[in-house]
C-alpha cells in the first residue's frame, strides 16, 4: 500500500477568490484515518490557513459534513483507505453558500427549523410532580428513527429540490416535525400543518430520495415527507368532502 494519498481540497477565500480553487496536499495514508484526520494533518503540519469545522470525530455532533468525491459525507466517518490510491476530492457541502474553504453557511436551516415547531406542544402541561407521560416502547418506536437527526445537513446537500427551490423547508426540518407529530406526548400536529402542508413544505418534494440515501444516521426524511403527504392529503380531502365537520374541528383547534 502506498504511504501517502493526495487530498484535493477546495479553497475559497472570500474577497480574494471569486470561486473555489483546488489545492493538493499529500497526507499519510494510514489505517483508521478518516478524511478528517487527513485534513487535521494538513492544518497542523502543512497549511494552517485551511478552514473546516469539526468537533466530536465520532459521527454524532454533525459538524464535519463535506463533499467527498462528489458525495456528501461526514468527513470523520469516511476513511482514507476506502479511496486509495486517490486522489480524494474534498469540497464544501453543495447547496449552501460557502463562507470559507470547507465551511458553509447553514443559517437558512437554523431559520427554518423553529418554523416547524420542533418541540412538544400540549394544550395542558402536566406538572412534573405527577410523573412521566407514559409512553410504551411501541409508541417510542413510532418516532424514534426521526429523532436520530444530527442536523449534519448532508440531506440538504443531496436534495436537488433544495438547490432549485431555496424556500423549500427541506428534509431534516420536515423529518423533525414528523418526529414530534408521531410522538404520543405531542398535540401540535395541527399547529405544524400550515407550514408543512404549504407549497414550500412537503408539496415541493418530488421524492428523489437522496436525502435518505446519504443520511449517516439511517433517518428516512424522504419517507417522513411522503407519509406526511398522505396524512395531509387525506385530511384535506376529508375537509373537502365534509366541510362542515372539518370547519368545526378547525375552529376548535384554532380557538
Amino acid at each position: 500500500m502506498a504511504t501517502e494519498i493526495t487530498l484535493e481540497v477546495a479553497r475559497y477565500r472570500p474577497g480574494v477568490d471569486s470561486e473555489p480553487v483546488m489545492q493538493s496536499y499529500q497526507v499519510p495514508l494510514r489505517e483508521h484515518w478518516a478524511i478528517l484526520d487527513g485534513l487535521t494533518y494538513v492544518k497542523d503540519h502543512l497549511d494552517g490557513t485551511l478552514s473546516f469545522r469539526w468537533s466530536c470525530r465520532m459521527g454524532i455532533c454533525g459538524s464535519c459534513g463535506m463533499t467527498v468525491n462528489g458525495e456528501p459525507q461526514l468527513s470523520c466517518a469516511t476513511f482514507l483507505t476506502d479511496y486509495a490510491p486517490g486522489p480524494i476530492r474534498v469540497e464544501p457541502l453543495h447547496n449552501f453558500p460557502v463562507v470559507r474553504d470547507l465551511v458553509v453557511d447553514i443559517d437558512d436551516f437554523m431559520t427554518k427549523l423553529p418554523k416547524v415547531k420542533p418541540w412538544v406542544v400540549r394544550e395542558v402541561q402536566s406538572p412534573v410532580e405527577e410523573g412521566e407521560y407514559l409512553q410504551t416502547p411501541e409508541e417510542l418506536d413510532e418516532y424514534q428513527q426521526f429523532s436520530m437527526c444530527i442536523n449534519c445537513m448532508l440531506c440538504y446537500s443531496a436534495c436537488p429540490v433544495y438547490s432549485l427551490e431555496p424556500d423549500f423547508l427541506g428534509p431534516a426540518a420536515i423529518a423533525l416535525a414528523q418526529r414530534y407529530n408521531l410522538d404520543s406526548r405531542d398535540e401540535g400536529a395541527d399547529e405544524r400543518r400550515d407550514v408543512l402542508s404549504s407549497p414550500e413544505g412537503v408539496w415541493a418534494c418530488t421524492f428523489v430520495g437522496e436525502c435518505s440515501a446519504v443520511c449517516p444516521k439511517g433517518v428516512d426524511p424522504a419517507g417522513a415527507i411522503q407519509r406526511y403527504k398522505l396524512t395531509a392529503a387525506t385530511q384535506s380531502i376529508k375537509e373537502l368532502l365534509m366541510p362542515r365537520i372539518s370547519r368545526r374541528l378547525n375552529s376548535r383547534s384554532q380557538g
Partner: protein
Amino acid sequence: MNHRRSSPEPLLWMLFSSGGMVAALMVPILLFLFGIAFPVGLLSAPSHAHLYAVLHNPLTRLVLFGLCALALFHWAHRFRYTLYDGLQLKRYAVPIVVLCYGGAVVGCVIAAGLLLTV
C-alpha cells in the same frame, strides 16, 4: 389558514399518487399485450367480436375511464415537476400548469366521450 384550505396541492397529489398506483398495476399488462405481443405476433390478437363484447361491459368502461383519468393526472403532476426541476422552468409555472392539468382534463373528456360511445 385560508391559504391552507385553498391550496390544490393535496388534491393534485392524491390524484397523482392514485394514478401512479393504478398505472403501475394495470399498464404493464395492457401495454405488453396490445403494444408488443399482438403487434409482433407473439400472441394472436383477440377477435373484434370478443374485444367489442368486453368493451361493451359498463364495468370495463368504468375501469378504463378511471385508469385513463388517473393516469393522465399522474402524468400531469409528474411532468409539471419534471419541467420545473429537470429543466428549471419554474418561471413559466402558469403555462406549464395549464398545459399539464389542462391536458389531463381534455384527455379525460375525450376518454369519456370515446368510452361512452362504444
